[in-house]
């Protein structure tokens, strides 16, 4: 707990991200592979929601990623609005061996756009790439859909741990870049908005103070 607390204190950002997609596409195993480097062959359907954390360094910032997992099955779905609230990123997961899960990506994307924020970073994930012999969705199809909808795209295998970290890191890095850009814009706009003539005098005072400081030092 001391270590966890230390991590909490050291984090520069906490980013919430959600996984969505049909039941059985491998959402829970993607998260357990990413957060704990574990894979469960005996995976059961998720009931309700779960979340997991992992700390990641991006461009010298320490980010605590809070990744949410939910049921894909309709009867276990609940409170979609609270699930998406505050999420900065989403992974939209389908199973490359089950075409129906790829066909349903459009439905999930619609829900995401209804409840998620405008700037949400979305990564389309074609999971189970280790089962290439059973493939029903070509990589190119996923890539084209992602380009059309302006999503990132990655094929992964949670079983073989292929591209799992890469997919999460791409999402988290993009979130970080958007947050940083917005922060910069706020600063610039703030500065511009705070320049009535009265403030110029203050700036002059600051210059004078600086000169005085130099004078004192010398």
């Amino acid at each position, binding site marked *: 707990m001391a270590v966890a607390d230390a991590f909490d204190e050291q984090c520069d950002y906490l980013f*919430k991200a959600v996984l969505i997609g049909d039941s059985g596409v491998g959402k829970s195993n993607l998260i357990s592979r990413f957060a704990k480097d574990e894979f469960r062959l005996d995976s059961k359907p998720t009931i*309700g*929601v779960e979340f997991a954390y992992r700390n990641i360094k991006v461009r010298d910032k320490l980010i605590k990623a809070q990744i949410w997992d939910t049921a894909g099955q309709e009867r*276990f779905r*609940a*409170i979609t609005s*609270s699930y998406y*609230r505050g999420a900065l990123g989403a992974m939209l997961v389908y199973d490359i061996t089950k075409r129906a899960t790829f066909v349903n990506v459009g439905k999930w994307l619609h829900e995401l756009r209804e409840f998620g924020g405008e700037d949400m970073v979305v990564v389309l994930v074609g999971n189970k790439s280790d089962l290439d012999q059973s493939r029903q969705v070509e990589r190119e199809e996923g890539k084209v859909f992602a380009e059309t909808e302006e999503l990132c795209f990655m094929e992964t295998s949670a079983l073989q741990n292929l591209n799992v970290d890469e997919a999460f890191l791409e999402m988290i890095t993009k979130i970080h870049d958007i947050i940083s850009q917005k922060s910069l814009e706020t600063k610039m706009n703030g500065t511009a908005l705070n320049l009535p003539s009265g403030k110029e005098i203050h700036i002059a005072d600051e210059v004078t103070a600086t000169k005085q400081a130099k004078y004192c030092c010398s």
Partner: protein
Amino acid sequence: MVYHSSFVNEDGVSRACGCSLLPLKSHIKGPAPVSDQDRTDIVDEAITFFRANVFFRNFDIKSPADKLLIYLTFYINVALKRLEGCRTLAEGTKAIINLGLEKVPVPGESGFPFPGLFPLPQSHKEAELFRNYLKQIREETSGRLLSVAYRPNGTPNKWWLAFAKRKFMNIIIP
């Protein structure tokens, strides 16, 4: 003196179990009409009045909307009980989502907290309409409650969570 709902005469709105299905500022799926974002809805009233109304053992009803207010006051009390002990917004969100998974009984069914308050549904269709409305209004209430029960930095608002210990109208929550 309890706080009453301002939604006294709601003409032209669908009804079920003696209740108008009042509008909500919400895009959550359900039978409620959509209200303008700048207006107060019944959920706003329930949250605003909660900390006063929860102290009352009796509630004199002045309009059918007051029945919904009673139902939501009870629901908020139940939700706060689930949030008790959740030390972060994430844990609170998980608890409230799990609450949302539970069965939502309508008048006449076991587990409905206020027998006699609402007329029984006259048909299966009316029962399902009211159930869907209750599901919608509960989900909307849950989302807004998380916003007041936890601060922007994700820590609990002790002032709100302390009300988990109150018993609304002496109803024991399992």
